[in-house]
C-alpha cells in the first residue's frame, strides 16, 4: 500500500558539504497508513542504477532530525509521520553524475499486529536536480 508514493520525484540531488560533493539525497514516504516510531523501521535499502548503497552510508532526516539507520533502531520517541516526506541521505563520495538514474527503494517495517515484516518497494527513474 502506498508503494507508488515511496519515492518522491522532486529534490533528488547531490549533497555538498564544505565545497565537496559527499553524497546524494532523495525524498521518501512511508508505505503505511499511519506514522511509525523510528525504532520500528527495520531497514531501508536503496539501489542506484542497480548498485546497492551500504546501510552504514545511509541516514534519514524527519522534520529536521537526522539519524543514521543504526541510531533509528533505538529511537523510541521520534516518529516518521504519515505521508511525511523524509530525506534519505546516502554517503557517496563524488556524488552522482548529472542526468537520469534508476532508483530502487525498499522499506521494511515492524508492524506489531502482523506476524511478518511489512515490505514496501518503489522503483522510479529520477532526474538529478542541479
Amino acid at each position: 500500500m502506498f508503494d507508488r508514493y515511496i519515492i518522491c520525484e522532486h529534490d533528488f540531488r547531490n549533497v555538498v558539504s564544505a565545497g565537496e560533493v559527499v553524497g546524494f539525497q532523495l525524498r521518501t514516504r512511508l508505505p503505511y497508513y499511519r506514522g511509525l516510531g523510528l525504532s520500528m523501521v527495520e531497514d531501508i535499502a536503496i539501489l542506484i542504477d542497480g548498485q546497492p548503497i551500504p546501510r552504514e552510508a545511509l541516514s534519514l532526516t524527519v522534520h529536521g532530525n537526522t539519524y543514521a539507520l543504526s541510531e533509528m533502531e533505538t529511537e523510541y520517541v521520534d516518529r516518521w509521520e504519515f505521508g511525511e516526506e523524509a530525506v534519505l541521505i546516502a554517503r557517496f563520495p563524488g556524488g552522482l553524475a548529472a542526468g537520469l538514474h534508476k532508483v530502487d527503494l525498499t522499506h521494511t517495517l515492524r508492524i506489531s499486529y502482523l506476524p511478518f515484516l511489512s515490505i514496501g518497494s518503489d522503483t522510479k527513474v529520477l532526474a538529478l536536480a542541479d
Partner: protein
Amino acid sequence: MMITNGIKRGVSLYSFQEEFFLRKMTLEDCIAAAATLGALGIESIAEQMMPGFPNLSDAFYDRWHGWMAKYGTTPTCHDLFLDTKMYKGRLMTDAEMLASVVRDLKHANRLGCTVIRVIVNTPPHIMELAAPYAEQYNVRLGLEIHAPFNFDHEWIQRHLETYARVGSPYLGIIPDMGIFEKRFPRVRADRYVRQGAHPHIVQYISDVHAQHAGTEGLVEAIKAMGANELDLAMAGDIAHMTYVEPRRLLEFAPLIFHIHGKFYEMLEDCTEYSIPYHEIVPVLRECGFNGFISSEYEGNRHIQDVFEVDSVEQVRRHQRMLARLLGEA
C-alpha cells in the same frame, strides 16, 4: 426529525487517508467533509492525522474542540495501536503495554471520545488490567473484530471469556464489517489482473470465495490451471478473508460499542460490491445497537496504482446507503 432507531452515522477519518497522505486534505478538511456528508460522528486515528502524537499540545486539543463546534460534529472513537514490537529483539512488557493503553485512554478522553478501537494484537490480560483506567477516563475499550479473525477464533474467544469474567461495562468489541465479505472485492481482483494474474483464474478464485465453503484443494486446482505467483497470492488472500453470517451479531449485542463500516467499493447505486449491508444493518437494529456506524473506506490501496482516488465520493455513497437502511427520511 430523523428516525434512526438509535443508530447514528459517522465516519472514520481513515477513509480520507489517500487525500491526507498526499496533502490534498488537512485534518480540518476531513472533518468538514464528514459534516457535509451528514456523518456527524468523527472517529480519528491520531497516529495517522495528528503528527506529534502522543505529545499533542493543549492548543491542538483546543483546535479540535473548536472544529467540533464549528462543524456540528461529535468525537466518537479513537483508534489505538499497541506497538509491542517497538524494541528490536524483545516484546513490550505488561507494564509497557498497559502504559501505552493508558496513554491512549488519556488522549481519547481529551478528544471527547467515548470509545477506543483496540487493535487486535492487544492481549486479553492487558484489557483486564486497563479496565479500571477505562472507567477512570470514561472511555470504553472495544476490541476490533477484523478479518482474518472472527468471533470463533481462539484469540477472540479468549478475549470474550476475559470480558465475561471481569464483567466491566468498559470492555467490549467493535466488529469490522469486513468480516462479512460475501464476495471477493472487485477492486482487489481487478488489481491482481493488472499486475499479471490470469483473468480466468481470478474469476475462479472469486467464485470459490463466494461459496464460503473453505479453500481446501484451491491451490492444487489453480496450479492445474497454470497459476502464476499472483494467482497464488490471491488464493492466499481468500484464506484470510471471512464471511460470517450477519445474524451472529445478535449473540454479541451487549458487547458492541461501535461499528467499523468497512467498505472497498461503493457502486453508483450506493450499494457495496462485496459486503451485504442490506443484511447487516437490520441485524444491528435488532441488536438494539444505538452507537455509531463509522464509514471506513479502504478501497484506495487497491486502485491507487492507476486511478485517482475519490474518498469523499465513496464515503458520500456509503452514507447515503446507511441513511436509507436506517430509515432516515
